[in-house]
């Protein structure tokens, strides 16, 4: 399997405050990489560096390299094209101020797709993948922002899937979703693994254990350990702090 993402000596500072202290890791194509760690460990920052949305935050300095399919993302001139290749689900649900249909159709339309029949198919597929179709199929013209928190989060997932990204970054996607729906989405993610590479940032260590092929443990901006999920969740991970975090001894 080839590496989809190669991160080398990545350092990020918010002003003078370090967020990532020179981490290096590879993400293999079509794997689910779980990223766990306590708050302020740099997990979200890592995802934002990959799709270059961190550039939208002022006062950030980024050093090191992030290569996507061997090409440094910072050398890619068409940043919007890059972002279309990477789906992103943020921790809190963000319904765009559009109808449910338009929320999902937003990305394909941005890419130039105007055919209504094709858009209908995409909207239905994505809403089904996000386990939302049955709840909203009769009111697709309603505002997305009027949905409940959990439904909005699933709408966000549907939107992220709508442009068929090569990489899907999920940042605490289940924080506002009930456990049953979470399980349904997890099943979808397992099936999506064949089509895309998935980076799963989660505070629910058991979720990483259920889904991830490999798991990375981050702490205070450092990559403490990355290994197969079975190894990380065994009684003998390489680092003691990994064991302590997973077993609730801190964090």
């Amino acid at each position: 399997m080839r590496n989809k993402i190669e991160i080398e000596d990545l350092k990020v500072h918010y002003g003078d405050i370090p967020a990532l202290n020179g981490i290096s890791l590879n993400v293999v194509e079509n794997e689910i990489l779980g990223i766990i760690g306590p708050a302020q460990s740099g997990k979200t920052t890592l995802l934002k560096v990959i799709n270059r949305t961190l550039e939208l935050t002022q006062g950030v300095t980024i050093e090191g390299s992030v290569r996507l399919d061997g090409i440094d993302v910072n050398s890619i001139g068409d940043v919007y094209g890059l972002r279309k290749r990477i789906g992103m689900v943020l921790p809190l649900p963000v319904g765009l101020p559009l109808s449910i249909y338009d929320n999902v159709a937003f990305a394909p339309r941005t890419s130039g797709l105007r055919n209504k029949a094709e858009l209908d198919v995409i909207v239905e597929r994505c809403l089904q993948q996000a386990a939302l179709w049955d709840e909203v199929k009769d009111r697709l013209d309603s505002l997305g922002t009027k949905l409940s928190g959990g439904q909005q989060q699933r709408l966000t997932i549907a939107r992220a899937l709508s442009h068929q990204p090569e990489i899907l970054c999920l940042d605490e996607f289940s924080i506002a979703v009930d456990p049953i729906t979470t399980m349904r989405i997890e099943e979808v993610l397992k099936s999506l693994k064949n089509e895309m590479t998935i980076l799963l940032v989660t505070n629910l260590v058991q979720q990483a254990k259920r889904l991830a092929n490999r798991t990375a443990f981050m702490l205070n901006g450092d990559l403490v350990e990355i290994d197969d999920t079975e190894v990380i969740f065994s009684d003998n991970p390489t680092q003691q702090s990994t064991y302590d975090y997973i077993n609730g001894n801190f964090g």
Partner: protein
Amino acid sequence: MDKTKLLFNIIAVPILIIVLTVYLTLTFTVPTVNSEVSFESMNINRINLVKVRLMWMIPVLCVAIIVSVVIAFVVEEWLSTNNLIRRIIEPQIIILSSIPSIVYGILAIYYLVFNPISSSYVSLAFIVILLVVPITTLSAQNAIRNIDISIRHAAYAVGATKTKVILDHVLPLSLLEILGGICHTISRTLAVAALCILVSILVESPISGQTIVNIVHNIGILLLLVLLFSIVSSFLRKNPNVMY
């Protein structure tokens, strides 16, 4: 920001604007020595002249509002907080917007009522611009800033361009609050116009009873519009997201 730049921002640019206004006023004046003599010789009614000139300011008002909104979007969306142009423009907008309307009102009365012939349309246009642009720009900037950053990030995350994010999300979400600011500005401008007409009655003499009735009627309509725009403005600003 060092002290020199600070001093420049606080003092120099407003002074430059005022100097420019005065310069243009003097440059574009109609060469008449005594306005009272001209009134009599040209048989011009001062009140009508004031009203005509105020009507001519409506297009200026519209253009100034559009320009203000464009400035707000350019400053907020395209210029970073460290950008030199933004660091120069923003303090000027804040300083000029904090000047009470009555100051502009007095300026307008001076040119429009007491020197209606010798003053030019350009000078009046500058007064309208000074009255409208800072407040409208500031309120539009606030409206744009109030849009949750996560909405922008969510749109950018699916590959939307800056223009698309602005047109599809930022503008629709901030529109009502921007309109509230525009209504507030129009209200202020109409109040200044009413003041100018009122003063022109007091200055003009003799004046017929019928003319007074007509003018009071005009002022009444203007003040009603001022009230209406103020109410609409406060409603829109308190409920910026009624559409969503």
